């Protein structure tokens, strides 16, 4: 479905109240947060796989500078890291890291664990682990001696859709597009307060089939 189709579907679900719910509001306040919420609940819907050339001695990378599937800088659409591999595994034919002639997983560690060794940050050599600081600082341990290619697989927020491009299509699979409309409807109802807000929340729960750790009430 295109953005135009999804807007139309949301309108139908809202009883075609075009005055109370203008299209701009449906996109900004409904559809875009809805697709973000859907991917928050189910991160597997929008994984991105990209390569990064890490220069010699580079200790950490700001993951917000990575490109997305379209080659655009991910910026604040970065969400969380899933996997890091030494070498290029973005395509069908994987390519070993030229500098180390390796193709292997880099294991997750943490600053706290690495800090068991006083000099962990200054160590140079084989890259075997990565660490994270917050959600978007990624470091390699040990620091590479030569320029090294790594593949980063990460969960991303879907690209926001814009009203000016009604032919835009959400990043997530088409089978979920109707769910976006349903969640968007629930979110849009919130502004009306009770009882519509309660109905809106029920729509969210039903649409996302939530199994939350804590009940929302």
């Amino acid at each position, binding site marked *: 479905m295109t953005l135009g189709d999804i807007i139309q579907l949301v309108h139908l679900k809202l009883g075609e109240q075009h005055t109370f719910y203008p299209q701009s509001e449906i996109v900004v306040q409904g559809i875009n947060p809805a697709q*973000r919420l859907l991917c928050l609940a189910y991160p597997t819907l929008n994984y991105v796989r990209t390569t990064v050339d890490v220069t010699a001695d580079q200790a950490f990378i700001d993951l917000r500078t990575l490109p997305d599937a379209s080659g655009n800088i991910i910026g*604040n659409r970065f969400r969380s890291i899933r996997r890091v591999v030494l070498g290029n595994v973005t395509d069908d034919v994987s390519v070993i890291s030229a500098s180390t002639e390796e193709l292997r997983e880099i294991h997750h560690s943490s600053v706290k664990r690495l800090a068991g060794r006083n000099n962990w940050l200054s160590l140079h050599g084989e890259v075997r682990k990565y660490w994270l*600081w*917050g959600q978007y600082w990624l470091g390699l341990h040990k620091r590479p001696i030569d320029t090294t290619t790594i593949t980063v697989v990460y969960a991303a*927020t879907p690209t*926001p859709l814009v009203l000016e491009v009604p032919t835009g299509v959400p990043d997530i699979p088409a089978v979920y597009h109707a769910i976006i409309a349903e969640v968007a409807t629930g979110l849009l109802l919130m502004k009306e307060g009770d009882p519509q*807000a309660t109905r809106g929340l029920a729509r969210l729960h039903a649409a996302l089939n939530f199994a939350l750790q804590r009940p*929302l009430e």
Partner: protein
Amino acid sequence: MTTLADEISRVQIMLQDIDTSVSNLANIATSISEAAQKLARLNYFPQLTWVNAISGTSVYNMPATNVDIEHVLYNERVLRYITESSFDRKLSGWELLKGEPKYWTSDNLAKNTFRIIPAPTRTGSALPVIPPVPIIMPLTDNILVFATEDISTNLDAVVPMPTLLDYDDWLVYYSVYLHAGKETTQQNQPLSKAGALLAEMWLQFMERDKAGGTN
């Protein structure tokens, strides 16, 4: 990219508020800022802060936006956290020690300051590194702090928000909760409750993502 103006506009849509007076927009911005501070207190904004080490100086200041200090390295080596009382039991006059720093503490110190012990005997260079690897400032004989910060003071009407997009959604809903709950003519308790429920829902998922990150 989201700006503070975009966020205010989204909050106003939820509030069904068409008042564009400066004072009203400022009040909403205050709620958004308050919401951002809550995320900051939950350590959502990691930062790697470089501090220039000075020979003979043991107490250093962090930026005013600092929230929490997790790890401190000197000369690319780990400093161990210690409390002042631990040092008192071990050694008197430890504050006068000079040498290669081994410990750090924020115990009993003024906000946004930390002490490294012993005080260094060398002053690190403050000249940028070319090429800027691993960071633009030299780590040799200097201090690197793994910290978290408060970005609420950096929110600007036209500059993109220094947040992830998920955080922007959360800020809207939490701000609606705060704003609609105020004892003003705009008070709307049902809407405030709806905002709180949405914010809680978002935060549960954000916490799950974050759990794979910090530390």
